[in-house]
């Protein structure tokens, strides 16, 4: 006599459900892989085409005369440093003060409003911000202060600062919210006033997080092209540290070179893109790593 064979193999409907499940999993894995592969191909294309044009001249000389090979992007590197420095000087204090007000003083409703408007600002297209600064201090001089009236590193820096502001403020708010209330209460209990508590206790505790958030914003600003188009685009070919002059910048150099017909300039564009991508990826990876660490240090890691 025979006993019916028992198997653990799914059949019929159960089998179909398992197959559907497997297909879905494979699709999800494929999606994630494809995104990583695209990043890999992108970085590899930039590196393989960019490294060959990299040499000392590239970092120390200005652009070659038309038709000649060689040359470098020294003015653009200097210009980008000037622009990002101005943007940071403007955005950091505003961003941090906004965050302090929201986390230490403001009633919850007002804090929610500030968050909402900052997110809206963050969602504005960067080209619109460029146009805004153009209408504000490039097309005509700023009333009262009288700065502007022409393209300048100040105008470009202000445009980049508006890009950075919501990023700095939001990350600072997040870090300030992680500072344990016990620290604040301890300080009050010792009779320390509110502003002293903020300056001497809250800010030092959260400084690491605020700075790494700022670094992420710098990495973003350094790669922005659109805000500079109308504010700081037409510049001389010489190295220029003067913020009231219009200066060259790395992203804009890549943009104009990429649309030119000269193969030498294409090579330069790839090399500049390589420099930019290395800077941006290294700074954002480091900042992210430090941010995770400072979050953990504040005792609230997820």
């Amino acid at each position, binding site marked *: 006599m025979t006993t019916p064979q028992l198997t653990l193999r799914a059949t019929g409907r159960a089998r179909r*459900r398992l197959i559907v*499940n497997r297909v*879905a*999993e494979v*699709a*999800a894995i494929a*999606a*994630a892989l*494809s*995104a*990583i592969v695209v*990043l890999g191909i*992108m970085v590899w*294309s*930039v590196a393989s085409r960019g490294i060959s044009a990299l040499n000392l001249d590239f970092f120390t000389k200005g652009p070659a005369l038309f038709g000649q090979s060689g040359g470098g992007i020294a003015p653009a590197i200097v210009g980008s440093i000037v622009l990002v420095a101005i943007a940071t000087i403007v955005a950091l204090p*505003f961003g941090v*003060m906004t965050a302090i*007000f929201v986390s230490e*003083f403001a009633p919850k409703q007002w804090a929610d409003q500030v968050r909402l408007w*900052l997110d*809206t*600002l963050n*969602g*504005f*297209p*960067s*080209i*619109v*911000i460029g*146009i*805004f600064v*153009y*209408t*504000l201090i490039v*097309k005509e001089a700023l009333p009262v202060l009288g700065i502007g009236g022409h393209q300048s590193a100040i105008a470009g820096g202000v445009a980049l600062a508006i890009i950075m*502001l919501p990023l700095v*403020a939001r990350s600072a708010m997040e870090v300030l919210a992680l500072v344990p209330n016990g620290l604040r209460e301890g300080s009050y209990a010792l009779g320390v006033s509110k*502003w002293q508590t*903020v300056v001497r206790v809250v800010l030092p505790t959260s400084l690491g997080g605020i700075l790494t958030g700022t670094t992420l914003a710098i*990495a*973003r600003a*350094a*790669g*922005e*092209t*659109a805000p500079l188009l109308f504010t700081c*685009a037409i510049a001389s070919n010489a190295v220029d540290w003067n913020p009231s002059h219009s200066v060259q910048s790395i*992203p804009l150099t*890549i*943009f104009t070179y*990429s649309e030119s017909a000269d193969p030498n300039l*294409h090579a330069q564009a790839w090399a500049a*893109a390589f420099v*930019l*991508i290395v800077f*941006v*990826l290294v700074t*954002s*990876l480091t900042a*992210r790593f430090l941010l995770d660490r400072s979050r953990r240090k504040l005792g609230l890691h997820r």
Partner: protein
Amino acid sequence: MEAASVPQGETLAPSRGLRDRLGDKLFYWLTGIASLISVLLVLGIIWRILKGAWPAIQHFGLSFVSNNVWNAPLNEFGARDLIIGTIVTSFGAILLSGPISVAIALFLSEIAPPAIRGPAGTLIEMLAAVPSVVIGLWGIYVLAPFSAQYLQPAISSVLGWIPIFSNGQDKVESTVFAAILVLTIMTIPITSSICRELFLGVPEELEEGAIGLGATRWEMVKTVTVPSVRGGVIAAVILGLGRALGEAIAVTQVIGNFIPLHRSIFEPGDTLASRVANQYQGAITNLQISSLIYLALILLVISFFANFGAQLIVKRSDRKLAGS
């Protein structure tokens, strides 16, 4: 007779209380004004853009939106095909990136082993850190040629009977389709990282309940994980849309800057942001500059509503999740 004098200021300097009171007030107002400025910036941008566009608004009126010319020598400007181009490219991009992003987020939150989650998530977020001008450069010289050589002929050989997929001129590299691909790549990290956070936030008991009832992982995702954060997922896609709508540089590099639009997406086209970016050196007359600002205004209105809508949806779904 001398009054018994009470020694003063031995324990606290008399100015201390005053300094603290003033300091607190000053600090309050300083930070308050900073946060007010951050908020007013949004209104200031809208006001200045409106003011800058005013000459063009007066000159063309609302017919600017429906006109389809961009002729600098004749001082005739209109935005119709630029608006259509903006909508086609960004909706095309989120149609592609939405499902891919949700799949990536599901991989990162539900499927991937813990050792892979961190690094894979970081890599995908790094895609967001790549500057748009670099993606555009790569788009011109790597992606667009590849797409013109292989993808476009393949798609139009299958779907060519639908007009928007019909075969364009032979091997045109700068196309609307190339712009859609570039925008897809740019929106994936935004949408997928928000979705991942949402999926991670779904209460584990709910998911385990589904598994306990015998659901497969896919059935759990389909019936529990995704439905419980549906609003958030929609908002994440809309945030990606906002990014796609406003992207100027990478699009202007690959799209070919051509209007009127063709019927097929395998032909050159243009968008609002791309047109503004492309004209940065060419705008001479005041009316042309003002028309460019008008374009920026239309773009601002579109993206403002997209972002505001997304935030409202997020808020509502947050509240629902907190209530449950």
